[in-house]
């Protein structure tokens, strides 16, 4: 059990942050992380034999989040669970920063489930397109297409929002 706890500590950031980016709120992300690690414990021998623990964890995290996303539609804005802004910053500036953060996080919600997963794994987690394809059980060509569409959609969303605000 101590060894497993040590393993959890090693991968907990990866799993929780990925779940948070996919689901958009911390409570769901914590539920998803719990489920991922319970599945890891029950399949530990099989996973260790495959010698690609992080790939397995990404795949299971995405699957668990997809399942949870289908069950739940309501979400709490992500910035509510992030650490507060640095103290001493000007109040108005802080407010504008929070608003910008909200928009940036919301831009991921505009994407389809698969586009979001591909973009999060590639651009935010830093996986290669091949690794993303393996995690999503897809082909590299499909993933590249999903990533390019997602990038354009996010750009369009941000431009529309910030142009309107200005």
């Amino acid at each position, binding site marked *: *059990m101590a060894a*497993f*706890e040590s393993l*959890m*500590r090693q991968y*907990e*950031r990866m799993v*929780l*942050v990925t779940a*948070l*980016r996919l689901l958009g709120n*911390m409570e769901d992300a*914590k539920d998803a*992380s*719990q489920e991922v*690690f*319970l599945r890891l*414990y029950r399949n530990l021998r099989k996973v260790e034999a495959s010698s690609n623990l992080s790939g397995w964890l990404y795949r299971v995290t995405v699957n668990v989040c997809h399942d949870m996303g289908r069950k739940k539609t309501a979400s709490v804005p992500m910035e509510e*669970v*992030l*650490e507060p802004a640095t103290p001493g910053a000007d109040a108005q500036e802080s407010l504008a920063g929070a608003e*910008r*953060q909200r928009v*940036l*996080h919301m*831009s*991921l919600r505009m994407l389809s489930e698969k586009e979001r997963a591909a973009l999060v794994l*590639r*651009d*935010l987690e830093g996986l290669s*397109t091949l690794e993303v394809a393996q995690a999503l059980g897809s082909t590299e060509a499909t993933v*590249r*297409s999903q*990533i*390019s*569409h997602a*990038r*354009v959609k*996010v*750009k369009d969303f*941000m*431009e529309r929002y910030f142009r309107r605000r200005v």
Partner: protein
Amino acid sequence: MSCSEWEERIALHAGGDLSPVDAEAVERHVAECATCQELLSGLRQSEELLRGAHAEPVDSAHYAAVRARVMSELAGERRPWWRQAWVYGLVAAAVLLAVSLRPRQPQTVAVMKPAPVTPVLPAPPAAHEAVRQAAAPVHRRPRRKPAVKTVETVTAPAEPLVVKLITDDPDVVIYWITGSETKGE
């Protein structure tokens, strides 16, 4: 190739996902096309903003909470077998089953050994019914009526056994009667 056909390649190029040859082709087109230059610039900017927004660290208390929940769940799963609730349920069910299937000893004895006093006198109909009910099996299997049969056998009148001996002389026949005091010729 129109600008819309370049869009996918430019989006991939913005994230560094093209081969050097394809990347060079995109750069050449962008250098000549203001619309695509703007697209590439916008893509790079939005990607930077998105990365910055997600770069903020998550409070470590959230990690600790997940860890505690997982370890608690696993501790429950690893409880010794004799401390699991389902074991007690299984034992209780087994005991109930054993009690319900236990054979009823007194009823079997009544069927196999009828009371010795019944042969002397014919039992009244009520007594016959009582014996029959007492001997009734648990599993509704058709049975004989041992008490009634015993009474009929014993109360029938005893008849003497007659042995007829034929001799060489057809005029002489010897009769030997047993079961009574009489023997004759």
